[in-house]
């Protein structure tokens, strides 16, 4: 059953930051997919590639993704523990 609850149209700055943080967490896999697909465009399909360059790029991209995720996860945890936004639950949908 759809229990339609009235949600505030605007939220306080803190909750606002928390929500954008969640948006950031949601965007990460798309950034990751982009970074992983990008090297495909460097060299036309079927031609030989430079393994050393590709490997260095791939691991750098990997490291950046991990770093960003760690940053967001840590801040999400810190924010989620002391200020549970009432809308936190349903905005997963």
């Amino acid at each position: 059953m759809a229990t339609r609850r009235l949600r505030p149209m605007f939220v306080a700055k803190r909750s606002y930051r928390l929500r954008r943080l969640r948006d950031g967490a949601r965007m990460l896999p798309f950034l990751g997919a982009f970074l992983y697909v990008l090297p495909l465009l460097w060299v036309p399909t079927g031609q030989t590639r430079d393994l050393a360059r590709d490997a260095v790029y791939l691991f750098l991209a990997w490291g950046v993704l991990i770093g960003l995720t760690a940053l967001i996860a840590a801040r999400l945890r810190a924010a989620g523990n002391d200020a549970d936004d009432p809308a936190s639950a349903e905005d997963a949908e």
Partner: protein
Amino acid sequence: MIPFSLLVLACLAYVLFLFLVAFWVERRNANRTAGWLRSPWVYTLSLSIYCTAWTFFGAVGYAARSGLEFATIYMGPTLVFIGWWWVLRKLVRIGRQQHITSIADMVSSRYGKSPFLGVVVTLICVASATPYISLQLQSVTLSFQVFASASAVASPVNDPAVISLWVAVGLAVFTILFGTRNLDSREQHTGIVIAIAIEAVVKLVALLAVGMFVVFTLGGGIGPMLDRIAASPMAGWEVDPARWIGLTGLSAAAVLCLPRMFHVTVVENTDENHLATASWAFPLYLMAMSLFVIPIAVMGMELMPRGSNPDLFVLTLPLSEGRGGLAMLAFLGGFSSATSMVIVATIALATMVSNHIVMPIWLRLGPRAAVTGDVRGVVLMSRRMSIGGVLGLGYAYFLLSGGSSALAAIGLIAFVGVAQILPALLGGIYWRGATRMGAALGLGVGSALWVYCLLLPSFGPGAVLSASVMAEGPFGIGWLRPYALFGVIGLDPLIHAVFWSLTLNIIAFCLGSVLTFPGPVERAQAVAFVNVFDGGAGLQGWSKGTADPEALLITAQRILGDEAALGYFQEQAKAQGKGGYLPDPAPEFLDGLEMRLAGSVGAATAHAMLSQLAGRAAVSVEDLIAVASESAQMMEHSAQLESQQAELTRTARALREANEKLTQLSVQKDGFLSQISHELRTPMTSIRAFSEMLMEQDLPPDQAARFSEIIHTEAIRLTRLLDALLDLSVLEAGAVQLNVGLVSVQTILDRALAATEAGRAGRQVVVTRDAEAEQIFLRTDADRLVQVVINLVSNALKYCDALLPELRLVVRQKGGHVTLDVVDNGSGIPKEKQALIFEKFARLTDQTRAGGAGLGLAICREIMENLGGSIAYLPGQGGAAFRVTLPLRMKKPA
């Protein structure tokens, strides 16, 4: 060189160490002092069973063959974990809330606790995991053989079949010992989790150590290593974009759907917050595991003799360089990868087999056994048998395939197999409309295509599918060739299978879901899964049943164990406000109990068992609708209350306004009374005074005549006042008799001006009229209208203070109405007084000058209302101006 016996000894010592750790942890856990054991790091490390021996050894071989493509196997899981907020978080929450025991349980629970779906998913998992397990046996056997052949003495146990048998038996014992010690209501095995966490550390350290050795000792540092990579035969690698993207997606699907990954990620999760740490720590682990893969491959190809197996470079490279200790570490790393994967995969598969295949059959065979038999023993026994069975299958597969290179490809084939569960899984947690029929169709179509396009051909041409079928399709139908379904020949066989199986899987899933109607339990579960973050575990599945609490307790004891069951029942009884151990079979209690039982035997079985006891299977559609309409009624009720409240507020406001009006009216009435008594009293006073004087006898006759004239005048004035009052009250009551007839405006104005001739006599007044406009015939009461005009004209004459008074009479016709403006050129009426002039006894100047009773305009207003028109003061006309509006045809009063 390391003697083979030392290797075996080290292996045994390592296993013994793991035994002790697991045992110690279980003891600690039993005493509830296992704080750090449940840290996010242990959780993250336990996830590392994703990296099996296939990846520990095989990644280097993969890299030697296809360059960086091996990384796609780790990139998929990385994307899933850094995107944990999307899927993993929801899966873990659902898993915890619903006491999910395996991926088969998850799918079965979501689609109405369907036993059938549980069986299907279990079969898919067993079919794809068994070859995978035998791959682990093979890798351990191979690494043993490397050492055996390296050591000078011929080993007595150099037969692969013997080695793998011992490994399989040892793993079975370990798994049975720690995996089925007890039936946990959440199917968690802390001891095993710690053991695999330790193994995760060992394999990471081993691979990093080999990698460091290769890069810094053999390669001469990072810079020279990069040069070597650039100079190696691998340097010019090619990539197939379809494979690159397809494999990344496939590994992403696999990390969600592999039974062992689901087990450690969802089932063994003790705290949702651990996921936040794992979201970056697990990708970091994967990156560390793959960091040195390329250098090892490059160096291996450079240093090792031509034709050596690149899959074993991790072992053979240190061995050939004479680093026995490092090789031993690498061996233990590979051993750890294989054993941890086998242990967890076996537990996960055994749980599924026992909960979804053995238990339902057992229940079917003897329904009474659910109540009287030793359920706990049966469950544990079926678990142990399943563990033995799964490992036995793996071993048999290893023997049959002869440890051939066909096994190498099985890792990805297994991925495609379990990926078939993905649509039903994701659809189940995001789409309420997904139904059991859709899931069954999708799983069926997908796995059939997987078997046909990938699994069967993988055994080699002629093994299951004949070469002619592969080349020309079954019965010569070219469109059905396993590697070129529907004429698609441009794709790599693996990607071809992924593409077709998943596409048709999803289509079947969606079509089936859209076209079928879900049952009541299914709908309730759909809500509970999809809206898991909305709080509340969905609808209650049990109405207040007829279950006997004692029978429930007996069953619960047999599944959960005596103490746990008694504790739970006591707690529930207390929550219901009862003493003792037997709570009422209230719906909440039954739901909770079912969840607990589901943690041990799976949702479908627990549901079936409780149904037997509670007498009634579950909710009916009517119940659901009743619940829905109940809450709809409540919403409606509250909406009604709200509207009633709004109505009450409105009424209260109206009443308050009415009250204010009444108070004003009362004040007006008092004012009116005092006014009227004043008006009556003034003439009466003079009449009395002069009549008293007349009564005195000695009054001169001329004075008497004057006095009686004053009395007469005052009496006339009094009469006029009373007439006006009478007139007003008749008009106000609406009881006036109107004499309606046809009359022209001109006539009315003529009569009015004639009547006021006397008032104008002394003054020179210019009257402006428009004869043309006055040719309008009205149907109204002419006498009353004339009275109004006379009043207005005489007022204008009386009050106009201009030196040369002018009077304009303007007549206009607008729509069905006629307006008549009476305008003079005096100073007009001040704004603040304009509202007052139509009130009774309202006089702007003092009474003497006006000479009237102050009722004229009040009477005019009443007359106009009786005639269906109105009269209003018209501001801004350069003098006092009044507008009379009246309809062309007066309507008969209702």
